[in-house]
């Protein structure tokens, strides 16, 4: 836990905007499904730190650059920094079907193990390192995943959900009404010609993110 908070402190130096409530990190639980190779070209004076973000029982790992200085200035971490930086061995590769729990992911990736919970800031709902919750606001890929996802609907419902056709508009729709409709399409409770098929392609969590987007549009 000591190392954990030390690394988080280091990260906070690197990203001053991370709010303190993001220290409430719990270890990721679930299946490790995304583990990119460690970056080969690390910019001068930076170190690559593995971070985990998880959601819906899926853990995504990413590499994040932090100024070496920031890490070196943390006594508790200074010793472990080289370990964090040591290349991940091939033993880490996770078979597509392996339901690797956080614990076994940690053993598979010893160098990174200690730092996983540290950088894994509390549960952004989309799983990527770039989705770190900065001061309570979604940033990076959470925003871009959500906006890209909502844009899949614009093909029929119009850009930003502003439909001008027989397909109903989504712009300005009440959040809870939206979520209920999507869940009802998914379950079959609400009959549809096509929406049951689209709704099944998205998670309930994603319905929530899209609800925010459509509710925020002025109709």
């Amino acid at each position: 836990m000591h190392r954990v908070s030390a690394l988080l402190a280091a990260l906070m130096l690197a990203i001053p905007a991370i709010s303190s409530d993001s220290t409430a990190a719990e270890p990721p639980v679930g299946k490790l499904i995304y583990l990119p190779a460690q970056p080969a070209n690390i910019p001068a004076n930076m170190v690559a730190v593995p971070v985990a973000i998880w959601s819906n029982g899926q853990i995504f790992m990413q590499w994040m650059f932090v100024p070496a200085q920031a890490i070196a200035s943390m006594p508790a971490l200074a010793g472990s920094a080289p370990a964090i930086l040591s290349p991940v061995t091939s033993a880490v590769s996770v078979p597509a079907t392996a339901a690797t729990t956080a614990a076994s992911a940690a053993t598979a990736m010893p160098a990174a193990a200690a730092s996983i919970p540290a950088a894994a800031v509390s549960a952004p709902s989309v799983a990527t390192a770039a989705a770190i919750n900065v001061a309570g606001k979604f940033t990076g890929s959470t925003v871009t995943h959500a906006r890209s996802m909502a844009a899949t609907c614009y093909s029929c419902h119009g850009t930003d959900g502003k439909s001008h056709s027989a397909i109903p508009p989504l712009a300005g729709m009440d959040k809870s009404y939206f979520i209920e409709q999507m869940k009802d399409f998914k379950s079959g409770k609400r009959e549809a010609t096509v929406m049951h098929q689209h709704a099944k392609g998205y998670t309930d969590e994603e319905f929530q993110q899209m609800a925010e987007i459509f509710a925020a549009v002025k109709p």
Partner: protein
Amino acid sequence: MSMQRRDFLKASAAGLAISGLPLRAYGNAAKAKVVIVGAGFGGATAAKYIRKWDPSIDVTLIDREGKFVSCPLSNLVLAGLKTLDNITRTYDGLKSHGVNVVVDDVTAIDTDKRVVTTAKGSFPYDRLILSPGIDFRFDQIEGYDAKAQETILHAWKAGPQTLKLRQQMESMPDGGLIVVGMPLAPYRCPPGPYERVCLMANYLKRAKPKSKIIMLDANPDVASKKPLFMKAWDTLYKDWVEYRPNSKVLKVSADNMTVSTEFEDLKASVINVIPPQRAGHVAELAGVRTDSNGVWCPASFVTYESKSKPNVHVIGDSLLSNFPKSGHMANNMGKVCANALVEMLNGREPNPIPIVANTCYSAVSEDKAIHVATVFRYDPVKDQMTAQPGGGISADLSEVESVYAEAWAEGIWGDVYS
């Protein structure tokens, strides 16, 4: 462009940069330039959405056509149920988003110097998006030369050929035969040829009831929405449509008006042969048509960056993928690509798990339509786009879907061009 920015873009492309991190220190460089070739569903969508999500990026969209004529709904023009005007859109909306639209022919692409050359100018880029659609491989069918192409039409790019094929049907005698030939998958618009046969039959039923259509399908079976098209042929067009699977067109003759398969030679009043296809020649100019047959373009499903040329992205029908080659898919790819480029050009990671969705509506008569819908999600472990469970086809041919099919077209044309 400063050296710093170049290095930074490289770092970002290698998947190194992360949102909000000190790399942002590199961020205040010159305006990034994106050049897009192809103003169809893919390219025009990418242009609009890059500007929507980051208006500081300079976007130039190049197409040789001065306006957009939609392939979706063009079979309704064949049937006389719509006009070409109904399915045509201008680029004015794109201009209002600050897209620099250039109507010109691309003559060369230098991927080392990062410059696109057209007949009248040259356009340097930081990132290039190619959405060139398809080219036809007439050489795969004996006799389908330039001269034969004047009489035997494909009408597989909407525009003058659509009208000409319509005229051929109008001027053929009642009692005449139409032969429609279609290639092995993958080709542009999987349900399109079957929709065409329905709508041609719809016209014959109304105007030339003694006439008939033979469809020669190179595929072993109806390649899209099979039960629904079969039902349309059985219930609406029994006397007008004859479907022949495993019947690849090997040879045509415009002089004799014949079309030949391994099994037979057919003489017809109207011959409409859709040839096999490959990525548009612009993809070849850029050196990205690099799958094992030199036909389609392999690219990342996260960024659509070509697997062979850095900083060149490929979307739409040209892509090597398990996607249906549809306008809806191209529109969705345009958005994912725009989203990724906006992030990368700002020194952030692209969304690592993109989602795209497809819907293809097909009209089967003047007032009935059907659809197929699928959502695809990126699987980073398998590095592939996985069709999500739950997709599928319409329950039946229906009037309500005929209304939605038209609403879909209005919606997507607006999403791309308004």
